[in-house]
């Protein structure tokens, strides 16, 4: 299905840089996680960050949406320079993400998880909610409608009211994607969206990621292990190794980059 996507003209042509990362360095108590990483992400593109285990991929993502504070460097979001990003700030600026090891709200149903994702658009205070005043009801309806659109989009109608805890791994990943989408993000960070999935699940996930990018024009930054998948679905790839950037470019370029071959493909499984 990926082939077919690229065969057609893109619904949202790739635009200018939407996220720029400048000389980011991050270390935990002396341990260097990232050193002077710089790259940019263009609007509407699918950008992959790859690298062997412990290359600092997740750290990079965590820096971009402010979970970690880099010791040095800055992030430019839609031209706005931000010395320090905080998770909430990132969310408000249209960045949503999924986590490497699923971070769903275990006690809630699929529907509630996804609805929770759109909390930024809920303005009614708890009293309005308690007394079911018009605004609360209106927002609840809109929130549900948005959630239902996503549920349809991700083809999870049949588990709508199932507590996420009971779902198999693959579906949980899908629900987490749904929760991220509920925030209607401009930039979507996916931390190993296909880790631990079987072939069909991976294919589905690829389709969904591409459809998201294609249908909503969402810019996607994803970390992935599976080289094949990455090469199929991403427009450009950044390669990290031991916290340093060793490659950046289209899948083809990266594939032919000697450092990458040594560092990554050498040890690839």
């Amino acid at each position, binding site marked *: 299905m990926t082939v*077919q*996507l690229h065969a*057609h*003209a*893109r*619904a949202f042509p790739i635009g200018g840089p939407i996220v720029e990362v400048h000389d980011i360095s991050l270390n935990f108590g002396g341990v260097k996680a990232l050193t002077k990483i710089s790259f940019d992400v263009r609007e509407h593109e699918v950008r992959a960050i790859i690298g062997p285990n412990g290359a600092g991929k997740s750290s990079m993502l965590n820096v971009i949406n402010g979970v970690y504070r880099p010791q040095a460097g800055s992030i430019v979001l839609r031209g706005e320079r931000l010395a320090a990003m905080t998770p909430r700030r990132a969310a408000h600026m249209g960045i949503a993400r999924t986590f490497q090891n699923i971070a769903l709200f275990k006690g809630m149903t699929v*529907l509630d998880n996804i609805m929770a994702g759109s909390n930024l658009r809920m303005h009614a205070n708890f009293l309005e909610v308690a007394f079911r005043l018009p605004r609360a009801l209106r927002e609840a309806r809109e929130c*549900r*409608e948005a959630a*239902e*659109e996503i*549920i*349809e*989009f991700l*083809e999870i*109608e*049949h588990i*709508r009211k199932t507590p996420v805890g009971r779902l198999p791994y693959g579906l949980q990943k899908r629900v987490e994607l749904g929760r991220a989408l509920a925030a209607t993000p401009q930039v979507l960070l996916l931390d190993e969206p296909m880790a631990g999935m079987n072939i*069909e699940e991976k294919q589905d996930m690829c389709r969904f990621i591409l*459809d998201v990018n*294609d*249908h909503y024009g969402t810019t996607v930054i994803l970390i992935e292990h599976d080289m094949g998948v990455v090469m199929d679905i991403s427009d450009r790839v950044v390669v990290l190794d031991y916290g340093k950037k060793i490659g950046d470019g289209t899948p083809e370029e990266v594939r032919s980059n000697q450092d990458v071959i040594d560092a990554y493909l050498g040890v690839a499984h």
Partner: protein
Amino acid sequence: MAPQELQADTFPKLLMHQARTRGDRPAVREKSRGIWQTLTWRDLADETVALAAGLAERGLQRGGHVALIGDNRPRLYAALCATQWLGAVAVPLYQDASAAELLDPMRNAEITHIFAEDQEQVDKLLEILPQLPAVTTIIYDQDRGMRHYRQPQLVSHADLLTQGRALLAARRDALDAEAALGRGSDPAALFFTAGTTGQAKAVVLSHGALINRARTAAAMENLRDTDVTMAYLPPAWIGQHMFGYAQPMVVGFCVCCPESPETMLADMREIGPTYFVAPPKVLESLLAQVSVRMEDAGRIKRSLYQYFMALARRVGVPLLSGQAVPLGDRLVYRLGDMLMYGPLRDVLGMSRVRLAYTAGEAIGPDLLLYFRALGVNLKQLYGATETGIFVCVQPDGEVKPDSVGTATDGVELKFTAQRELLVRSPGLFSGYHGDADATRLAIDADGWFHTGDAGWLGDDGQLRIIDRVQDVGALADGSLFAPKYLENKLKFFPFVKEAVAIGAGRDEVCMVVSIDAGAVGNWADRHNIAYSGYADLASRDEVQVLIADCVGKMNAELAQDPALASLQVHRFLLLHKELEADDGELTRTGKLRRVVIGERYQALVDALYARRDSVRIDAQVRYEDGRQGTISADLKICRAPTFAAAPLPMPTRKAA
């Protein structure tokens, strides 16, 4: 019935009538986005006429042909009627057909406009578009993934609708006039016959024929506009069209479309239809599900279930047919209804069903009786695409498992020397599209349609069908051999998915069986038998013993009846795969394609009669992702216990 309803001789006119008389009543409900979105008759009419305006703008003309490929959706019904509004002919096609399968019908029917549900369907169409120069417009419903398609023929349903709405103001009168032009004799829709033998034929049915049949049946069962039905079968099947489109249009009751195939059961429980139609296939899988889930239940529940089902067989069936039953039994049955039948009906979503048909295929008597025993008024009807379905229907209170009921109003029956059933009825089709010769063969000079089914009329005036004429044969010893009877009997066991009986001209009967992966798999799990996949499961000795036991039970029952004793199955083998429509072994409605099967599995049949112990088979298989591959497997040939013809007690063999 109201006079103007009677003079409404086309579906568009009926729709307008319904919009006038019960505009605010629900016409179509669709489970979408988690709730039941409802279209009233007025909404449906408005959408239809707007769509018609859009179609007219895009050059659809009287007599043109419009293909519809997709699931049951309100949009689909509106599209159907909009097509007919302009005097064009609707051609619903099977949504799971491959691009190649779609090509011939489309060519044959000279399609110009196509309604396609989603990207998947559109992709199929684009594949064959080059060979279909006549196609000018493809209307897609879901724009998911469609944004970057640039073909000029493509237009989204929504856009067409808005366009139509815009035009409506100016065109309303013209459109109404167009609809008024329609006559009952006009062709309404084109259906491709299941075609158990060779190529599918395009059956043309007129508004008149469909409406006449719909009215007759509705009157007979006194359907009301308060009735509710589920639309979950392929729209390309005449049955779905009759029960989900024609009859609602005539009666004005509500059709409900499930959210997705996976959620069908849940959705059905929510809606609780009062009028339910299911081919034997569906009922079989329902029964299989019930048995499987009951197997997982605790001991007490299980024995309760067994006890009360036995009772239901004895008491429920006659009760439902309004026969006298001793008070004691009736009281226990009440209890059972509280503890077992009621809840079962409810979890199956059948609590409110007051009329249920099984159609499309002959049903095994045990299967029929199972549901009747539960208190569901399940009835057989007999008909074919060419007869607009309704030929015979079992009247309430006279349901006999071996009959398909009495002739409905306006239908005449007669038989040829070869016992072939001939039908004459106002519901007959007007001919095979673009195939005058075939038409002449099917409908003779006096207007009798040759059904190709062998049967006879009982003294009770009820029709009994033996089998397809060309399938009915005789064993070497001359005793009558009707494979379907045996197959249905065996398929009552939940472990059996499909069965093919062979025996014509042979000295004894053998069977090729494909197991039900779900039921057998569950059974295997409980007896902790490890297996890697379908083929592996089917090759397990334990499983073969299990099936042999089923066949044995069937044989025992056959042995009870001297007339059938010779039909006992002596040997069988378990197929390494399920029979699939995609592999051409079944029709899209799930009927056996004996010719295809006979050719493909010749080797197996020979081996069965050569009394070999096993046979090697190399089979083409198509994987999910469409790749072709060959499996080669050794199929063991199993012997089934058979019994002396004299009536004797049921055997007490245990499944190992």
